[in-house]
């Protein structure tokens, strides 16, 4: 297809698609008129049945926890997949990354002020991440959000211009094991329910006092495992990309900053 023909062909089809889609959309109950009943039932049940005040977390890790298991494994599989696709190949040679990666980051070199500010941010980020993971059943947050926040801690170190330190605190092997433990732990938690004669992923831990950090039974456990998996998974993903960008070189290929 020539470009011109393709564009015309697409525009005609897209117009048809848009009209058709809008035809369906305009019959929805309308914005602001949620029809129920699923969400309303759970809004009413979750605090009593699961001692979880954040219904979204209760849905994510319990009522529809099986979806989240699949979702965690999507993340897990993709990280493995990206690892596979960005693996070191026979003709790749490793090169020590330069100390100043300014050009590679497409940004001006980091000043000491930025460095200090970044490192000062680090502790609050880690604390906030852990808080978010552990209080998922009570306030907005949970394993997924907290995990992503935790994963951003090493990124801050990198953004402060220090790939060496980034490498030091983010061991590939540790991240790999942590990710597998997080994802596998989720699946195993479900299997443990069988010991108690329950269904897969059924709660087997006392529910505790509503509003307590250790309330919510398995929700808290699964949330923590998810946090581990997500944090490790995103760090692994970043390591794969960093390595490909900063470390692996083909013969005859030099770093961009020599010629910029």
């Amino acid at each position, binding site marked *: 297809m020539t470009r011109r023909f393709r564009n015309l062909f697409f525009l005609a089809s897209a117009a048809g698609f848009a009209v058709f889609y809008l035809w369906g959309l305009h019959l929805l109950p309308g914005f602001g008129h949620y029809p129920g009943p699923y969400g309303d039932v759970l809004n009413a049940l979750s605090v009593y049945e699961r001692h979880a005040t954040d219904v979204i977390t209760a849905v994510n890790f319990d009522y529809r926890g099986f979806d989240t298991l699949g979702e965690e494994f999507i993340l897990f599989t993709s990280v493995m997949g990206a690892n596979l696709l960005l693996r070191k190949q026979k003709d790749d040679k490793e090169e020590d990354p330069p100390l100043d990666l300014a050009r590679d980051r*497409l940004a001006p070199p980091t000043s000491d002020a930025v460095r200090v500010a970044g490192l000062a941010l680090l502790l609050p980020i880690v604390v906030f991440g852990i808080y*978010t993971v552990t209080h998922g059943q009570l306030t*907005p*947050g949970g394993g997924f959000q907290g995990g*992503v926040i935790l994963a*951003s801690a090493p990124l801050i170190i990198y953004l402060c211009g220090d790939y060496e330190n980034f490498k030091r605190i983010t061991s590939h092997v540790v991240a790999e094991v942590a990710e597998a433990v997080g994802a596998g732990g989720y699946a195993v938690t479900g299997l443990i329910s069988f010991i108690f004669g329950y269904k897969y992923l059924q709660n087997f831990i006392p529910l505790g006092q509503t509003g307590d950090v250790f309330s919510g039974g398995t929700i808290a456990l699964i949330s923590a495992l998810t946090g581990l998996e997500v944090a490790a998974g995103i760090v692994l993903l970043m390591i794969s*990309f960093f390595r490909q*960008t900063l470390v692996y070189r083909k013969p005859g290929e*030099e770093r961009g900053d020599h*010629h910029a």
Partner: protein
Amino acid sequence: MVVMQVTILIFVAIAGGAVVFTRNPLNQVMGLSFFGLLLAIMFFIFQAPDVAFSQIVVGAVVIPLMVLLTLIKLKTKEQSKKNDA
């Protein structure tokens, strides 16, 4: 409240269009990051704080960072090709 909702929706529509119609990937990734932030604000306004949380980190930080790293790698490749020529 309604005014805020309408405003943010219109902003999201415009920003989404801008991401698509920016042809230079480097500019586009800035747009994408901004778009991610707008979405997070939208989630807050529409009472979805949990989603907003994730969106801030994923949409405005993780994804743009991955795209940037990819662009850097592509640039290095491009330059080595020029050297060969």
